[in-house]
């Protein structure tokens, strides 16, 4: 069977299945198995693309090339590890009485559907379907965020829904404008929203319309990426949802939204004067980076803090892609990978930590290393990694971004460094206090799923020191496509 079809079908079917069968003892395992299946299919698909080059599916509606297959593989991988992590996590939540059986059912089915929507968004060739999938991803995650049904989680979900809904409505307007522009070239056929067709004619697209369209798309999808000042939903949603959801939101959904912007940027670059789209992204990126960095120092809730850290990194990545060119694109892609892996690892560790200490307030979390050395070290190393300490891979990508910025946008360098420095001071001081020191917390009997944390960190560490040649090739190809 076709890997691609499998990859989309498994989460869809298992999501439906999980809805139907409800919460059983084996349901978490089914969740993991389904994720594993998705992951294997994604790996197969990746192998196929690497071997045979880009391909279409379902007519021309889906298109997989070296750019999105990379995101697909990453998404499926983090999806798998998160599902492994969420097994014990959710069990503990149920034992603590924070979640009931129906909610757990909802969680698992929505999780699979969420995976489906993201994979669909990544692989579709049709910018309209991309929008639909993004909206669907919002809807599923709104349910996931509000899973606890506490006032705070409802408030977070409400804000998430409204802000992202409005944002994505703007993206739709941008898509309409894009269609409007494309129609003039391609005619009112069904092909006018297919990215592969648009790319072919991108230089003929009407610039005035494309400019407007890109603004709407950037603001729209940018809301979802968490670009300041459109980011306000993000910390709330990350902090109040269950931790596995925070992990996938941060690690995957933001990436997917950014991916959508990237696809549109390619078109905008073709139609518009050079640097127009790039400069907008640079502006947004720097502003986001700076704002998020200063937000960090005021945080009290650990998940909220790491949510701001995600915003910060999204700013950095947006900046990188804004600069454009093979090196910066390469660095941006690498940074997305590193951020996904590291941030989800951090959220895994944070999840366990908050369960052990039964609080998300950082001032009440102390001495994690005493409670469970692995969690403590996981959080510590993860934090150091996300702060850009070598030898972790985040440093590699930040190094490339910084050096590229120094070369082409020297004025931006101080801003970048200021933001990174402030972020370092803010985050590290707090995490260190959580990890080190004495603790009063008891050791709980539950065995945490610590493997995903160290698996992620191991990969990040390896990529910091050594990027295998095939991965390099793949990244290069992808970054070349981004122009």
């Amino acid at each position, binding site marked *: 069977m076709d890997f691609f079809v499998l990859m989309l079908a498994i989460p869809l079917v298992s999501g439906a299945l999980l809805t139907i069968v409800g919460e059983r003892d084996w349901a978490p395992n089914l969740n993991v198995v389904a994720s594993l299946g998705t992951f294997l299919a994604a790996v197969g698909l990746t192998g196929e693309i690497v071997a045979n080059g880009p391909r279409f599916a379902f007519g021309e509606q889906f298109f997989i090339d070296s750019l999105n297959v990379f995101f697909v593989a990453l998404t499926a991988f983090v999806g798998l590890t998160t599902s492994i992590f969420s097994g014990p996590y959710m069990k503990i939540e149920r034992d603590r009485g924070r979640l009931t059986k129906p909610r757990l059912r909802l969680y698992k089915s929505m999780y699979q559907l969420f995976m489906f929507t993201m994979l669909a968004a990544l692989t579709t060739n049709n910018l*309209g379907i991309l929008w639909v999938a993004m909206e669907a991803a919002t809807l599923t995650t709104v349910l996931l965020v509000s899973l606890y049904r506490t006032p705070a989680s409802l408030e977070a979900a409400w804000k998430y829904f409204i802000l992202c809904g409005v944002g994505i409505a703007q993206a739709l307007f941008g898509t309409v404008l894009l269609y409007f522009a494309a129609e003039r070239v391609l005619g009112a056929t069904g092909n006018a929203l297919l990215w592969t067709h648009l790319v072919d004619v991108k230089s003929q697209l009407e610039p005035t319309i494309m400019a407007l369209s890109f603004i709407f798309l950037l603001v729209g999808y940018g809301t979802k990426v968490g670009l300041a000042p459109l980011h306000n939903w993000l910390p709330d949603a990350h902090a109040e949802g269950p931790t596995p959801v925070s992990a996938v939101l941060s690690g995957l959904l933001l990436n997917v939204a950014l991916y959508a912007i990237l696809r549109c940027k390619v078109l905008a670059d073709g139609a518009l004067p050079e640097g127009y789209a790039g400069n907008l992204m640079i502006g947004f990126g720097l502003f986001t980076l700076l704002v998020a960095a200063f937000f960090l120092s005021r945080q009290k809730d650990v998940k909220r803090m790491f949510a701001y850290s995600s915003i910060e990194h999204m700013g950095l990545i947006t900046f990188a892609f804004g600069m454009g060119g093979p090196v910066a694109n390469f660095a941006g892609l690498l940074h997305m990978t590193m951020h996904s892996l590291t941030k989800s690892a951090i959220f895994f560790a944070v999840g366990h930590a908050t369960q052990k200490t039964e609080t998300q307030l950082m001032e009440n979390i102390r001495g994690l290393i005493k409670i469970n050395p692995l969690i403590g070290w996981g959080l510590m190393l993860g934090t150091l990694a996300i702060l850009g300490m070598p030898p972790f891979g985040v440093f590699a990508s930040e190094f490339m971004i910084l050096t590229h910025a120094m070369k082409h946008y020297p004025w931006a360098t101080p801003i970048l460094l200021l933001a990174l420095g402030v972020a370092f001071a803010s985050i590290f001081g707090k995490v260190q206090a959580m990890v080190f020191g004495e603790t009063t917390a008891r050791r709980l009997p539950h065995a945490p799923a610590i493997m995903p944390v160290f698996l992620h960190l191991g990969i990040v560490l390896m990529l910091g020191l050594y990027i295998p040649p095939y991965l390099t090739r793949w990244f290069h190809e992808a970054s070349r496509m981004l122009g």
Partner: protein
Amino acid sequence: MTPSIPLSAQLINLFAAVILLLAFAMLAQRRMHSLVNLFALQGLALCLATLVAAVTTGQVHLYFSAGLTLLLKVVALPWILYRLVRQLNIKGDVEALINIPTTMLVGIGLVMVAFNVALPISELSHTITRGTLGIALAVIMLAFLMMITRQKAISQVVGFLSMENGLFLAATSATYGMPMVVELGIALDVLVGMIILGVFFFQIRDQFDSLDIRHMEKLKDS
């Protein structure tokens, strides 16, 4: 202005103007019940505009679009909203954060902005409904304004849906419709979103004893 505008275009422009007018009306409306009525009316106007476009261009999927709009925006969503208003027992006037005359003034400014932004596009347009894109943008912006100024969760949602109307207007009238798959997808999303929201309202009321969004200002950093 070209001397002879086809009737269909005149009609579409008329409906577009009606939609804009209704958007203003919604912005000014204080009562929840009337708000939903206005929303349904806006949906109807949208449906008619789509229908005219369908008739003019003879594109089949525009008929579908019109039907979908009718079903969703004129029947389903208002029905859900009425039910919600009744079940949630929402009484009293809609409270605006900014008083209505000011809102109207801002709204007029926004329309000017929208028209200006859409002007270069209108000049490029070869379709018969070149002006509608500007109107659609204006509707979107007015809906945005409404979402900003209203305090009840449900009126925010109405604003959101009104924004969706503006988008539909842009999609169907200005460009004679998006590809079918897309429109179906959009419609599905809107519907599902509405259902989820419906569920949400109950949960919100359970937790906060009110649908006033001012209760939902606990999550903050400052």
